[in-house]
Structures are given as C-alpha cells and as structure tokens.
C-alpha cells in the first residue's frame, strides 16, 4: 500500500502542480526534494513507497538519482515525470529501472492511474 510519496524536482512550480494533482482522498503523505542529491538523501531517510522524479535538474540530475536510488533499493518505485520525452531519454530511464515515465505537465487522471498501477505492482512484489 502506498503511504509515502516523494516528489523530486528543482522547480517549485512543478512540485506544486504535481502535489495538487495527487489524489487527496487516499491519505498519502507527500514529501519534497529540490534536486537529485536531496532526493537520494530523502529517499534514504523517508523510505517512500513511490518517488516522482524529474530528469533535468541542476547538480545531480534525475538519471543519476534514479540509478542511485535503484542501487540502494532494487524495489524502489520511481515514476519519472519529465518534459524530456526524446526516445533515448525514455529508453535510458526505463533501462535504469524507472517504473514508468509521465510527460509533463501530467494531468490528475494520469497521475492517479500511474499511482494505481504502482500500487498493484507493489502488492505483486510483496506477494
């Protein structure tokens, strides 16, 4: 069951848009990180069930943070949210273990659908 969600994005506006698009009636606890480095740190600290990860960020970018988080936790559920929807970017994040990739700006129904799929995948992983 998803309880904690971590949003990793350098843009405060992108974090706000995403936060507002996450269903309110599910009781999720939502945390925020401002870049890849902060995302890795907060992942270790908070152990969120799902991470929404931007790709283009200053310092540690989303590709690196995704790889690092997946190396720390092979079951980490990372949903990439990005404007960079070039074929190579998509294949790279999927190779690095992203659960799925959502094109920015993702609408509330798309976010909800991705969370529902993540919920099912978590249940399957837990047997």
């Amino acid at each position, binding site marked *: 069951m998803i309880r904690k969600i971590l949003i990793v994005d*350098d*843009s*405060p*506006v*992108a974090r*706000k*848009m995403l936060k*507002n*698009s996450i269903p*309110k009636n599910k009781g999720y606890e939502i945390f925020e990180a401002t870049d890849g480095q902060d995302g890795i740190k907060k992942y270790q600290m908070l152990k969120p069930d799902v991470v929404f990860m931007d*790709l*283009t*960020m*200053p310092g540690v970018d989303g590709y690196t943070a995704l790889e690092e988080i997946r190396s720390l936790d092979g079951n980490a559920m990372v949903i990439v949210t*990005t*404007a*960079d*929807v*070039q*074929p*190579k*970017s998509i294949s790279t994040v999927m190779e690095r273990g992203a659960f799925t990739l959502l094109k*920015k*700006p993702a609408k509330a129904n798309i976010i909800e659908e991705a969370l529902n799929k993540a919920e099912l995948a978590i249940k399957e992983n837990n047997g």
Partner: protein
Amino acid sequence: MDNHPGNSDSFFSGEERDILQEVMNIAFGNATADLAELIDIHTVLSVPDIRLIDFDELTDYLKESIPQNQVNSVAGQKFWGDFNGSGLLFLPSGSERALSKFLNLSRLDSPVEVGIVKDLDDTMKSGLLLEISNILIGACVGKISDLLDTMVSYTPPELLSLEKTDYSFLIKHFDTEQRAIVMKTLFQFDQQNINGLLLIMTNDKSIDWLKKALHAFLNAYEN
C-alpha cells in the same frame, strides 16, 4: 546554476518566474522530442534560465552566455500574437557538418568539387541552420503558446549571421527602448560535442498578458 539571477524581481514575482521557467522547460523538452523524431538526434537539456534585460544589454548578456571566442552562426524567427517576440538559435561553427549527417546532407562531407562546394557549403549551412532553427524555435514557441492557451503567427526563419563572435549587430533587430524577458536554454547534441543556445525573448507588449496567462496556467492545477 543560479536559478534566480537578474533583475526580473521588479517585473515578475518569484512564482511568476518559476512558472515561466517550468513552461520553458516543458516547451523545450517537447521541441527536442520533435527534433529527435525528425532527424533522430538526441539533445541533452539543461535547466532554463529566465532573466529580464534591456534590449541594449543584449550584447553583454550574450558575451556572458556564450563561451569566449566561440564562433557561432545565428538564426532567428519572430512571432506575434498575445505572446510577441523573437527566438534566436546559436550554433557553433562546424556543427553544420556534423548535423548534416542527420539530414542526409552528406555532400557537406565530400572533399570533391572544392570550388563549387564553397558556395554549396554556405547555402547548405544556412539551409540546415534555418531548418534546425525552424523546428526548435517553432516547436518551443508553439508549446509555450499552447500551454498558455493562445496562438502565435511566425515570420519565416532568417539567417542572421554565419560564423561570427560579435553579436552587436543583433541590436538593430530589436526596439532598444523595450525590455526583454529572456528565456535561455543551453543544450548539447549528444555525441556530437555541439553546444547550442536557444533564446526566446518577449517584450513589454506581452507582459500584462503573460502575467495573467502564467497564473491561469498554474491555477489549472490548483484545487
């Protein structure tokens, strides 16, 4: 990188600048996806930078943004509507040869017909720059307009200079009485060692509309 430079605070609130930065990020991401679809090239993106400058400071701004002595070619395109301004694309000299491979313009790589190739080179270089510029500026401005719920019209892309290091000539293309909101994105064509710069500039005429449109964009995501 510093995400909050310049004097845009006097013009835009912090939130307005953040919205514009995110809109530019989304728009350029879409533009590069369009380019990848058309010519199968991957672009490495950076975080966009938003600044407010006077148009007469443009040359200094470019000196700051472009590596010293880097020889660039510049193509531009104007757009108008609620969102009014210009897009400028800077690509370093020599990038045409690498990019030509992606557009099946292999003639640029041919060592033969040297006497003729010089003319063809310049024609093809400018043609290629105009094509890339048309895709990137058109798609980027188009997506910004789409996100901000408006439509723009475009002039055809224009080659403004071929292989220069001095950009003071650009000033004549703008009204120096006006201020410019400059949305800058640096990018790299993957595995080509080509670092480019895209500027989308709008002016005083669009400010009131832009501020309203930015808030409407964010409000669509408010509960």
